[in-house]
């Protein structure tokens, strides 16, 4: 059997399982909801100025949604960048790129496997965060109906479904961030630079969105797409932000991926 993308993917996951940084990101994704629930539980109040903030003591379903809002500022971009920014550059740092590229793998296979692994990690982090938030929230506030953004009441089971769908929609911009991270990882050949660079990219887009006079760019900023899931929590469901997120994020992710892919295919493997 000839090795291919899936061979690389399997071993990338195996490598991720053996590295500390993997657990740093996943650990943060798991611990933050618990800290949030405990802190708001002790204080009794809530972040009333954000959507669903005022309901966190009424239903556990509100907790993962509030965390999606807070997490989009830097936590989820950072967790995503932690692996996406590292996955190619780490091989440069270790000098192992030459090791794997002198086996029977085409470079495209290596790139594909790495990309899948970076995306998998981001997906797992988001769902770990959502699951822990849901469980911790339910323990603290119960599995109760949720008030939608349109003011209507949503039954708890339907609320659960909507939370799950929200996590899925949230993955759209996360995947775009991962692609940017992968690009920086490929071209900088430096893990720290790529991780920090990806986070800076995300923060700068948010900054552009709040600058006076640049408000018109907001719908096309990657950072804005982190709010697209809120369309699901309206009655009836507003699909327009989700559809926009899909194509806007593609406009970020696709060129970044193509650039990274071509750079990886053509680059000289000189270090190590």
């Amino acid at each position, binding site marked *: 059997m000839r*090795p291919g993308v899936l*061979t690389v993917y399997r071993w990338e996951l195996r490598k991720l399982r053996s590295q500390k940084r993997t657990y740093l990101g996943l650990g943060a994704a798991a611990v933050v909801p618990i800290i949030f629930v405990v802190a708001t539980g002790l204080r009794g109040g809530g972040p009333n100025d954000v959507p669903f903030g005022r309901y966190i003591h009424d239903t556990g379903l509100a907790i993962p949604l509030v965390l999606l809002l807070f997490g989009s500022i830097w936590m989820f971009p950072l967790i995503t960048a932690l692996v996406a920014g590292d996955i190619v550059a780490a091989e440069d740092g270790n000098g*192992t790129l030459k090791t794997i590229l002198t*086996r029977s*793998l085409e470079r495209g296979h290596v790139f594909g496997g790495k990309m899948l692994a970076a995306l998998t990690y981001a997906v797992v982090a988001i769902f770990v965060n959502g699951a822990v938030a849901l469980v911790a929230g339910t323990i603290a506030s119960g599995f109760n109906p949720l008030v939608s953004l349109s003011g209507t009441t949503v039954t708890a089971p339907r609320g659960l479904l909507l939370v799950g769908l929200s996590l899925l929609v949230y993955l759209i911009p996360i995947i775009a961030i991962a692609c940017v991270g992968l690009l920086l990882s490929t071209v900088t050949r430096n893990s720290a630079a790529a991780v920090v660079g990806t986070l800076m990219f995300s923060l700068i887009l948010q900054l552009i969105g709040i600058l006076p006079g640049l408000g018109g760019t907001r719908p096309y900023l990657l950072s804005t797409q982190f709010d697209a899931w809120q369309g699901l929590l309206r009655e009836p469901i507003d699909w327009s932000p989700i559809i926009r997120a899909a194509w806007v994020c593609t406009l970020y992710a696709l060129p970044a991926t193509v650039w990274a892919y071509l750079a990886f295919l053509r680059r000289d493997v000189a270090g190590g």
Partner: protein
Amino acid sequence: MQTGAPVEVRGLVKRYGDLVAVAGVDLTVEPGDVYGYLGPNGAGKTTSLRMMLGLIRPTAGEVRLFGRDPQVTVRALEGVAGFVEAPRFYPYLSGMENLRMMAAFDGGDARERIAPSLEIVDLADRAKDRVGGYSHGMRQRLGIAAALLRDPRLMLLDEPTTGLDPGGMRDMRQLVRRLAGEGITVVLSSHLLSEVEELCNRVAIVRNGRMVYEGHLSELRRTAGSGYRLRTTDDGLAERVCNAQPGVSDVRMTDGGDLRFSAAEPAVAELSVALVESGAAILALTPEHATLEELFFRLTEGDEDGDRAAALEHAS
């Protein structure tokens, strides 16, 4: 299926901006060769090997491995294995897991060769340990084991003994001899002439990215043996006579005040007569069997330095 010499390199050039790392390398490695790629550090050996393995793109020229171009497809590396600079592995995985990954990336029945390869390089009892805790010598051996997984007909080894202690160097050389004995064609880069002399039948000598010699070691040795050393009562006159004498070449004055030249025996006899007739009395005229070492320095460091090295050697 696969035709062509194990390695054919034509007009290979690699430039990084203004820096010329490899300035035109041509070489052919025949089946069964243990081919020494010899040159001082920084001569462009590693860069050449990287181009042979498809890791970096040549600025010009081409490489064929068994007739196939490693720049086009990794399939050109079928039956080819090796490493450039020190072999690198994932430090957080064990030696065994690293080899399993390599075997997975090789495909075919590479996995079945893990255990025998570990035996050959004598790492079977440390295979469960993380590579992060391996010594340099163990990593070198793991590099060989990883290469053996590919059941290679051609191995490219970049300075495999560098950084090893004397025992490790001996073991590594024995291993290379053993592999060659099993019919594997080996290309071995080295900056150690003694190593190449011990292991290789053919050599390419590179200097500043340029080939200064390619051929059989025995021919190189013959070239090395034709030098003479001359001391007379009038060196200036003697130098002029030498330069004018047919069949005498490569005349130069050493730092020690001796003249050196290359010539065949009959020409030397005629030269001695000519010297006496010119009035330069001969104090010493001795055949100088320049060592390969000396020749190597001459080829790799230029004449001036070559003479200095020769003079040093002579003085000692």
